Every structure is written in structure tokens, then in C-alpha cells.
């Protein structure tokens, strides 16, 4: 037990690295936010594409591929192969950029499924009403269905964002200095694992409030449903 305390709770050995760890966590947050932007946009595009004619097979192929392959593999393969591709911009992507793009591509698949559940939960009557008002298919989707769907799926979207934030730790294997990478570099020099504990604390400080907000939103929705109010505006 003493060994565990000495190995994971020796603040003196972690103190010199607090600045580096904080900078590392800032990298973690940046990657999480940038990846989330890609995932939200691409995910919505995929969810809509999935309902449109024969091209939906492209969307389904994309979604199933990235749901089936580990994010770690996606990142490693992108990192080692991209510099050899004769494609401008792509061949020059840094580890940081590959980190958020790769995670964005993977999470777009999950988020597309979340959107799909939301879109399918909107009552058919909404589509019929919009169409009878003379709206086109596209207009119906854009003005009537998607706005309602997105509101409904906010909790699962937040859930995916929390999962995404944790998966940012994967970028440490492609030499990006996220909080986990910094913590492991320090561990390799000090032979003490307290920097890993500090990384855990950084994550908790960021994700626990998100989880708390998420639970509040879900509880409020449930109260509203309980009172028989309309869930979607």
C-alpha cells in the first residue's frame, strides 16, 4: 500500500510538471473541441444523406466502417501513411491535426446514428404537414425535422462529446503532447506515476461538470414529459 501511495500520490515528483500538464490538457481540450465540430457537421450530413435515395449506401458504408474500426488504428494509420500521399495539405498534416481530424471522422459515424434516432423520432405527421404546406423534401428536412431532432438528441450528443474527450488520450501514441503524453513522458523521467494521477484530476475537473449538466438536462426533460407537456417545441 505504501508503494502505491508513493508511486501515485507523491506530489513533489509531479510539481515540476504541473505547467506542462496544464498545457497538455489545453491541447486535449483543443483537439476535443475541433474534433467535435467536425463530428457534428459531418455526422448531420451523413444522417441526412442516409435518408436520400441511392446515395444513402455511401453514408451507411461510412458509418458502419468507422463504427467497426478502432479509433487508435485510424489515428496510427493516418499518422504513418499521410506524409507519403501526394495530396497537398493532407501530406503536410501534423500529428495534432491528424488527432482532431481522425477523431472527428470516427465520431461523425457515432453522431450520425444519434441524429438518425432523433430524425426518426419526429412524428410522421410533421413531414406530412410540411409537405402539404408546399415545402420541398429538402425544406422539410432543413426547416421542420432537423431542428426538432437536434433538440431531442442533445443528451446523447453530450454523452458522445464526453466519450470523445476521453478518447483524445489516444493521440499520445502519435507523439502529440496531450495531457496523457506529457504525463507519460514525465513518468519515464521521474520513475513516478503521480503525473498520471494529475492527468486523471484534470479529466475529472473537465468531464464531471459535463456529466452533471447532462444529468440535469435529462431530469428536466423527464419532468416535462411526466407533466404531459410536449417534449419538442
Amino acid at each position: 500500500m505504501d508503494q502505491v501511495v508513493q508511486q501515485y500520490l507523491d506530489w513533489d515528483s509531479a510539481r515540476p510538471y504541473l505547467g506542462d500538464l496544464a498545457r497538455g490538457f489545453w491541447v486535449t481540450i483543443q483537439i476535443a473541441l475541433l474534433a467535435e465540430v467536425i463530428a457534428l457537421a459531418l455526422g448531420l450530413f451523413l444522417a441526412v444523406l442516409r435518408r436520400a435515395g441511392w446515395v444513402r449506401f455511401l453514408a451507411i458504408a461510412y458509418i458502419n466502417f468507422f463504427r467497426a474500426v478502432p479509433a487508435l488504428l485510424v489515428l496510427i494509420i493516418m499518422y504513418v501513411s499521410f506524409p507519403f500521399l501526394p495530396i497537398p495539405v493532407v501530406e503536410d498534416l501534423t500529428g495534432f491535426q491528424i488527432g482532431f481530424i481522425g477523431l472527428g471522422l470516427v465520431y461523425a459515424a457515432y453522431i450520425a446514428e444519434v441524429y438518425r434516432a432523433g430524425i426518426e423520432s419526429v412524428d410522421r405527421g410533421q413531414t406530412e404537414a410540411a409537405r402539404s404546406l408546399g415545402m420541398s423534401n429538402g425544406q422539410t428536412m432543413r426547416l421542420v425535422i432537423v431542428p426538432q431532432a437536434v433538440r431531442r438528441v442533445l443528451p446523447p450528443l453530450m454523452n458522445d462529446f464526453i466519450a470523445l474527450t476521453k478518447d483524445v488520450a489516444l493521440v499520445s501514441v502519435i507523439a502529440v503532447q496531450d495531457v496523457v503524453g506529457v504525463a507519460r513522458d514525465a513518468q519515464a523521467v521521474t520513475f513516478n506515476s503521480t503525473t498520471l494521477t494529475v492527468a486523471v484530476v484534470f479529466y475529472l475537473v473537465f468531464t464531471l461538470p459535463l456529466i452533471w449538466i447532462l444529468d440535469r438536462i435529462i431530469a428536466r426533460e423527464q419532468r416535462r414529459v411526466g407533466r404531459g407537456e410536449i417534449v419538442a417545441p
Partner: protein
Amino acid sequence: MRRWLIVLTALLVAAGLTMGLAACGDDDDEGGAADTATATSAAADLGLLEAGKLQVASDIPYAPFEFTEPGSTEAIGFDVDMVKAIAATPGIGITDVEFIRQPFDTIILSVAQGRFDMSASSFSITPERAKQIDFGDPYFVATQSVMVQKDSDITSLDDLQGKKIGAQRGTTGADLAATVQGAEVSRYEIIDDAFNALAAGRVDAVINDFAVSAYAAARRDDFKIVSRNPTIENYGLVFPKENPALRDAFNAGLAEIRENGTYDEIFRKWFGEDPPAPGEDPLAG
């Protein structure tokens, strides 16, 4: 649907249990075999985790010291041959030597925690490491080197200021890279990842043990070594502080294979030349 789910769950649980029990069974078998091995072995009590078997942690691949050939999982290399030769000396008398893959940056901690009997993994002897574990006597003289792409203009460590440097996490090469002014250091889990990053142009140079980088540079046509750091390092085998008996036995065994020529033979096998004479400057020639 319900029934189908129950059947599937039951199958999964059954499969899990079978595999778990099978694994336990294997352990028992090995234990039994090891016990008989000790009974016949005349070796002194070396405080091994499992009697009659030497479990060696090693960061694989680190050619030519510890690596595997394509299509094989068997560890080979200078360290592997040397440890096996020492273990086979009469003072130790162990032929069952298992090399276990372990990320380099976690080996010192793992050995200190007693998860392995020892480690042979091209560890340079440093005072920081020696606080955690015990080193055996020096067995190889090493220097750090700067390796770059063939068409690079970099010719020295000083040229790396403000550049991107690749190194392996936890190595003395990573320590040296961290001292270069304004350089951005990328630390990789295995040295081959750093080599790949150099080939891909993600880093401008790799700082690493000369013998290992030279081995890589000789086998591919895109790398060259441009500089060697004058600081001399010595490799040492790594032992838990709690087990001085094993360390002493290995020191005696190392002296023995140095004397009877086995060490020289292994050295020639992997480096194609005679080992440097004691006190000879490894940078000469």
C-alpha cells in the same frame, strides 16, 4: 428474441469460463514442470519468480540488441544471446529464459515492483535509474547519435536547435534531445516509430543509441548518421534491488563469458567486429 439473447449470453459466459479455466490449468502445468526442474537443478536459490525459469523484460524491437525476425515471435539479438549464455553458466544453470515484451519507459518501474526477474534492454547506466533498480556490471559501451534523412543538411547536435527531434520515450536519447535549445521533441513508444517518423519527415532527426541507429541506417537507404555525442554510456542489466543474489550471479557469469570468449563470439555475431578493448575510445575509427 428474448430466448435468442439468453442463449447468446449463456454461450458467451460458457466460452469465457472455459478459457479462464484453461488458462489456470496451463499455469498449474507450468508450475509443476518448473518444480521438477528445480529439483534436478543444482543452482543456488536465485529468488526467481518461478523456480527454474528466468523472466526477462525487454523492449522489443531494439535491433540488434533485442528484436524478432519477420514471421517469428522469438526474441533474438545481442542482449538475448548474452543473457542466455550467462544464464547457462554453471553458477546459474538456467536454460529456460523467457524474454517478455515491455514498453521501455515502464521497464524500470516494473522490475522495481518485482514483476520480472530482471531486464536486458540496452539500458544505459544512469544515477537516476540506479536509484530505482540495481545495475549489473557494464556490458556494452554506447554513445548517442544523430540520424537524419540522407539529403538532410543537418550535421551535428547543434544544428538541431529549433528543429523537430524524434526519440524513444524514457531513453537517454530522449534526455539528450530535451537539452537541445528550442527543439520540439516527439517521444515514441518504440524506436521504430521514431524511425518511421523520420522517414515520413515528421521529425528532422532521431537521437538514439549509435549501435541501434547504425543497424537501421545500414539496412535502409534513406537514413544517414551524421554525428555521435562524445558522452560515453555503459549498458547494464537491470535487477530488482531486493534480489542482489541474482545480480551477483550475473556479474560472475558475465566475467566468466568475457574470459572464455563467449562474449566476444556473441559480439562478433551481431556487430561483425571484435569488441573494443577496455578503455578504447569507441568514437575512434
